[in-house]
């Protein structure tokens, strides 16, 4: 299986934050969600992949190319969507094409026009006149016009309405349908990934918590629920995280540890629940 993105032992130190030994692999043809609470290192990881930040250690390969030694070659295969657009807001949509297309030998003007029609973007509009969702689609339209093989999205859904978020997932599902494209998608709105992501990489406070298939990730944990008196010391010990409230408790427990609590209500956990419970590790929250 070809890997479109390989990150090995990636490290980066700032004065007040450190990213430690992050490793993950995204094979060709799949969607990976990069998740974690705000400030956990998602954007740092993406900027390191793009060589916009300088890494302190580790290795990054984009479609087999070193992200620094072969930076230009790698980037010509890469499409990027940030949470806000990176064009001049005075540009008309047609000017965006004129300004950007020269940098990509594979740019297909017909494809760009087709994408604009599909996304209902008027070519004569200025960037600043487009809604946030439209600006995101404009960035996608550009990436699709040079047939970027790997798409990296940094918090694309923050500030988008549910309709636009759903449209984005639809677009991404179509994008990977032929098995020749991959997506790395960072978000703290994990509901977006619950269904569409194939892989999950979960970074918590600069450390890698998990990287692997989403089903495996979700299957690692269960939510155990019960009345306050049912929260035994044994359960408290085994729980990854506990939330107590006057009428009972909810605990995130590793699936293999749930055997002892079969008398309680045991439910599958959502990605959101796993992130919430694991990032409050150690202490109860109310």
């Amino acid at each position, binding site marked *: 299986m070809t890997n479109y993105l390989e990150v090995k032992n990636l490290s980066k130190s700032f004065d007040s934050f450190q990213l430690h030994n992050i490793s993950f692999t995204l094979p060709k043809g799949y969607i990976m969600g990069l998740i974690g609470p705000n400030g956990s290192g998602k954007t740092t990881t993406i*900027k390191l992949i793009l060589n916009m930040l300088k890494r302190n250690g580790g290795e990054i390969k984009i479609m087999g190319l070193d992200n620094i030694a072969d930076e*230009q*070659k790698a980037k010509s295969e*890469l499409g990027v969507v940030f949470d806000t657009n990176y064009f001049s807001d005075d540009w008309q949509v047609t*000017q965006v094409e004129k*300004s950007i297309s*020269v940098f990509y030998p594979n740019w297909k003007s017909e494809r760009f026009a087709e994408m604009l029609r599909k996304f209902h973007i008027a070519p004569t509009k200025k960037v600043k006149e487009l809604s946030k969702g439209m600006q995101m689609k404009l960035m996608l339209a550009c990436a699709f016009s040079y047939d970027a093989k790997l798409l990296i999205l940094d918090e694309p859904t923050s500030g988008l309405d549910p309709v636009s978020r759903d449209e984005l997932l639809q677009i991404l599902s179509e994008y990977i349908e032929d098995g020749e494209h991959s997506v790395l998608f960072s978000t703290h709105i994990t509901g977006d990934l619950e269904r569409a992501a194939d892989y999950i990489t979960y970074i918590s406070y600069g450390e890698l918590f998990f990287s692997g298939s989403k089903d495996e990730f979700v299957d690692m944990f269960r939510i155990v629920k019960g009345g306050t008196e049912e929260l035994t010391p044994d359960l408290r010990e085994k729980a990854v995280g506990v939330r107590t409230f006057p009428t009972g408790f909810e605990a995130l427990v590793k699936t293999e540890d749930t055997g002892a609590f079969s008398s309680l209500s045991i439910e599958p956990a959502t990605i959101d629940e796993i992130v919430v419970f694991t990032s409050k590790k150690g202490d109860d929250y109310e």
Partner: protein
Amino acid sequence: MSNTLKATKLDFSLVKPYIKVIGFTMLLPIAFAAINRSILTGVSFAMCFIAMTTGYTFSVTEKNSMERLYGILPIKKSEMVTGRYLFVLALGAMALVVSLITQPIVLRAMGESVGAFDMISAAIGGLFLFALYTVFQIPGYYKYGAIKGRVFMYIPVAGFLATLFFLPKMPADNPIVTTVVSSPVLLIGLVLVLVVVMYAVSIWFSIRIMENKEM
């Protein structure tokens, strides 16, 4: 098209919304030439003014956080920086050409005679002033951004004042100075070499700044 030229083209598209301001900046110095009845004054003003407008590229990229666009384009930072210098030089050349065409027409209409020597000395003087302004300004913009970097534009001004202050104190009979000043060809050659060296150093600094910069 080389990546450097693509970067230059991108810069032109950045300043497109300011095209009227830039056009006005190129034509305004006609008035200065007319008032002083001197093409040297007119061209000097034109080149100083146009040097200021090159900052638009930096303010537009900063306003729109376009360092992210530069971060994803398949182009080297050195190409991006060199492209910016080419843009600046192209803008300067346009201003020079516009001034050298329009100002003599106006001056001659006013009855002044504008000779080839006046034209050449105005061109060389203007070029030198333009280089002086931009070689400090651009690395300043790269290092400190479009607002704080503007301070660097005043370095040449401070330099002029210092020169004016120290010049009278220099021994006038310095043989090098007298030789150079007495031979226009030598003077022009010296200025051209100086301009090339200044830009080379400035580009080198800017590339270093950008390569060490984290976005």
